[in-house]
Structures are given as structure tokens and as C-alpha cells.
């Protein structure tokens, strides 16, 4: 058990009148990078939101490091060392980039108190963040917003990163940086759960993989296995290109 940082067991989620997740089982091994794939509407985002407690699971349980977090309020879950990047990026448009980062850095009461070296590292990955440090975040370009969103998640060390489609709208160069970044984070023992559409991206990073389809995990295993098996890809992801 203890080698799985996060586990979902038979999780059902309802949104309003809709029954979205139909018993999701998912394990995220500690220290590894787990990819969550699946076609549009499969329920990936809903799964992540359920993990974060933004939707409440109506059945099943979610455990983090052996602790049941199914019913915990979102702030507490985050408090346990989970960072989340939503699909919509959740940028605070009226605040400057600096202020956005400052909020993400829970320990710091001031911009000055943020971990300087870590910031430098982030700047090297995502130059835009430094360049627009004092601009209103709402004015950033689509990709720059995406960079900021990810930067926020890694501004302080966290145990688990939960990230929804980080590569969306990023230039290849930046995608490379991001891949490096996740690699380095993994080095430092961080566990990562990624939703990703860009299969090449997924292939290069993932250790383990889970594929969802209408509200359930239909395949789970090692990334390598999936990467090698064309037919499986075809049947699961319909990769025709």
C-alpha cells in the first residue's frame, strides 16, 4: 500500500443530475509519473476534480498516503502537499504574475520571501513568467498563461502534482522545457499525475499509464507496454495519425 501515494477505489461522481464517474479505480505509485489518457469526455478532468475534492465522490474512496481524503475539504487536501493545475488554468486574471505566484507560495508572506533559487529555476524553464513578472496575468498569451499555471504548481516543493493537460497550446520548445521540468521533479522524488492528450509527450515521460473511457478506467499498466503496442493504442486511443 505505502508504495502507492494515491489510490482511487470504485469512485462514483455525480454532477448535478448527471452520473459522470462509474467506479474509477486508479493507483498512483509514489515517486513515479502516472499518465491519465482518454478521449474527450472520458472523465479525466472529473477524476482530478474528485481527487481534489472539488466534486465530491458519491461512492468509493480516495486515499492519499494511506489516509482517506474522500470527504476532506479541498484546502485540507491541498494542505497535505497536493498541487493542482486545472484544465482552465485558474489564472487570477486581475492579479499580476508575481501576485499569482505569491499566492501559490503558501509559506511566503511577501514576494521577497519566495525561494529565490527555485524561482530562478522556474524562470529558466518558462522565461515568460520572469518577463511579465509585474504584468496583470489576464494579459498573458494563452501559452504564457499555461506556463504560469504550471509554475504556480511547482513554486514550492509538493508531494503530489495533479496536472490537467499542461502541454495544451505550448510551443514545442516550451514543451521540451516542461518535459525536463517534470523529469527533474521526479528525480527529487515528487509524484505526478498528468492528464495528457499529446501522446508523444506522454510517451516520453510516463512510467505508468491509465486510460479512461466513459467514466471508468479501461486500461492500466506501464507506459512502456502501451508505447510498444500499436494495436492497443489504436483500440484504446484511436491513434490513427
Amino acid at each position, binding site marked *: 500500500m505505502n508504495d502507492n501515494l494515491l489510490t482511487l477505489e470504485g469512485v462514483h461522481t455525480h454532477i448535478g443530475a448527471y452520473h459522470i464517474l462509474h467506479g474509477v479505480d486508479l493507483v498512483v505509485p509514489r515517486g513515479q509519473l502516472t499518465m491519465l489518457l482518454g478521449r474527450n469526455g472520458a472523465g479525466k478532468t472529473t477524476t482530478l476534480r474528485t481527487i*481534489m475534492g472539488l466534486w465530491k465522490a458519491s461512492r468509493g474512496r480516495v486515499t492519499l498516503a494511506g489516509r482517506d481524503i474522500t470527504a476532506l475539504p479541498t*484546502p485540507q487536501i491541498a494542505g497535505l502537499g497536493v498541487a493542482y493545475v486545472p484544465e482552465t488554468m485558474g489564472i*487570477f486574471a486581475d*492579479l499580476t504574475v508575481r*501576485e499569482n505566484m*505569491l499566492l501559490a507560495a503558501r509559506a511566503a508572506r511577501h514576494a521577497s520571501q519566495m525561494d529565490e533559487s527555485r524561482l530562478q529555476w522556474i524562470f529558466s524553464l518558462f522565461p515568460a513568467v520572469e518577463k511579465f513578472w509585474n504584468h496583470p496575468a*489576464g494579459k498573458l498569451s494563452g501559452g504564457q498563461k499555461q506556463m504560469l499555471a504550471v509554475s*504556480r504548481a511547482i513554486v514550492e516543493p509538493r508531494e503530489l502534482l495533479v496536472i490537467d493537460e499542461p502541454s495544451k497550446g505550448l510551443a514545442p520548445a516550451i514543451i521540451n522545457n516542461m518535459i525536463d521540468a517534470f523529469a527533474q521533479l521526479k528525480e527529487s522524488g515528487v509524484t505526478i499525475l498528468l492528464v495528457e492528450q499529446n501522446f508523444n509527450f506522454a510517451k516520453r515521460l510516463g512510467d505508468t499509464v491509465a486510460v479512461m473511457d466513459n467514466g471508468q478506467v479501461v486500461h492500466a499498466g506501464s507506459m512502456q507496454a502501451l508505447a510498444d503496442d500499436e494495436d492497443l493504442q489504436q483500440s484504446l486511443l484511436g491513434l490513427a495519425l
Partner: protein
Amino acid sequence: MKGLDLDWKPLALVPVLALAVLPFIGSGSTWVTLTVAGLAMGMIIFIIASGLTLVFGLMDVLNFGHGVFIALGAFVATSVLGSMGDWTGSESLWRNLVAVVPAMLVAMAVAAAIGLAFERLIVRPVYGNHLKQILITMGGMIIGEELIKVIWGPLQIPLPLPPGMRGTLLLGDAAVEKYRLIAVVVGLAVFAGLLWTLTRTKLGLLIRAGVQDREMVESLGYRIHVLFVGVFVAGSALAGLGGVMWGLYQQNVVPQMGAQVNVLIFIVLIIGGLGSTGGALIGALLVGLMANYTGFLVPKAALFSNIALMLAVLLWRPQGVYALSR
């Protein structure tokens, strides 16, 4: 906040306005009287508006019920001061303060307590929905006002200013009421306090972020809800304080007094720009001055001076003088 250190133009507005009217008024002493009185009145207005800078300016809650807390503060003050006659009766300013300060504290405490309930019952269900906020807080306003009538009765209650605080100080031919100077001191204190908490702590940021995207702030690990409650309560407490100051200024209180100032303070905030303490102060001072100047030069227009002022400012800066980019 960032506005404050960079953007000087609005700061210039106040002196510019004051100097601009000097030639029309002619008599220097009159001008001094009007100006000082206007600024002081501005300070009083700022105090009663300060609570709303938090609730409306930062939390973006259109709280029409805010006036209730102002009235509440004033009525509590009547009870407290009424119960300590000899201190209030005394001629010495210090003995008066001994009476007035606790009155303020009690008023703030009561307002805060009611604020807590108000947030829970009235405001919580409608965060982020202006229309419903307007309706439900209107309801809260009416209820509060009527409850005040039930407790203190519908009549006007006199709230005589302690003798030590009455009267005027003469500077040559110009006269300034003592009480207004007291108001200035209190106002500056409130201003400093607000400015500090909002700029030297993450509080201001968190609230503004929470208003834009609650879920994200929670996902970052902050209990935004607790924060909102806290800020709302603080806002109510400030309103209570404002009520005491306003009541003592008018020297009588009526249950409707809250409703009477409501529009005024909303105007002040709009002029100032939402969420900016500095803006609110400038807005209040401008309103105070305008009222006096127009009242002296063209009394007929006095009624409309505020609106004219607001429209003028909005034509210059549609977001108010200090808009935190919204």
C-alpha cells in the same frame, strides 16, 4: 495598492479642486471654514464607507444591508452613552473620551457579532451573484431596520455630543467644529490600519483572488471561506464604528439613518475605485468638499453634486480613480 505609489494624479484632485474654487468664494476665512469642514466631513464619510471598501470593494458583495450596521452602531452607542451619564455629561474632553471609546468598542463588537450572523444567513448563499446579493441584502436591510425599531422604537433618539467635544475652534475668522477634528484623527487611524493589513499582508490578494476563482484559491490550500467571514465581520465592525461617529455628528439617530447614507457611500467607493483604500479616502474627501463648495456657491445644485462628481470621475476613469485592474 500598487496604484498608490505610482499614480499621483488622483492625489492631486483634492488640492486642485480646493484651489480651483478659491476665487469664486472670495472671502479667505469662508474658504478655510468650508475647506476644513469639507475635508473633515470627508473623513467621517470615509469612516462609514471604510467597512464597505472591504465588503464591496474587495469581496465584491453588493451589500445594501451595510447601512444596518451603521445604524446599529449608532443605536448601541445611544444605549452605552446613555448608561454612563456623568462621564458623558462632563465638560472635560478626557472624561468624555472615557465614555465614547468604550461606546465605540461595544458598538463594533455588536456590529461584528450581527455581521457574523448576517454573513451566514444572508450573504453566504449569494457570493458571486450580484443580483441576488442586491435582493437578499435589501431584505436584510429592511429586517435589520425593523428590528431596530422593535428594540429601540421607531422614534428619533437624541445622541447628544459630550460637552467636551462640542463647540468650535476659531482660526481668525474661520471656525472649525472640534468634533470634526476628532473625526479626522479617527479616520486617519482607520485608514492606516486598513492600508497596512491590505498591503503588508496577503489578505487583500487572497480575497481578490477568491472573488475571481474560489475553487482555485481553495486548491492552493487556503480556507477562503473562513477568510471571507473574517473580512465581512471586520467590515461590519467598521460600519459600527462609522455609525457611532455619524450618530455623534448628527447628535440624533433614526432607524432609517443607515438607508440614508447607503447611496452616498456606494458613490464614494465607485469614485475611489473598487478595493482601493486610498481611492475610497480620496473619493470621500472629494465628496465632502464638493458638498460644501456647491452648497455655498449654488445651493440648488448641492443635491446633485455627488452624482455630477461621480459621472465626471467615471468619464475620466471608468474604473474609478484607483482601479485595481478588474
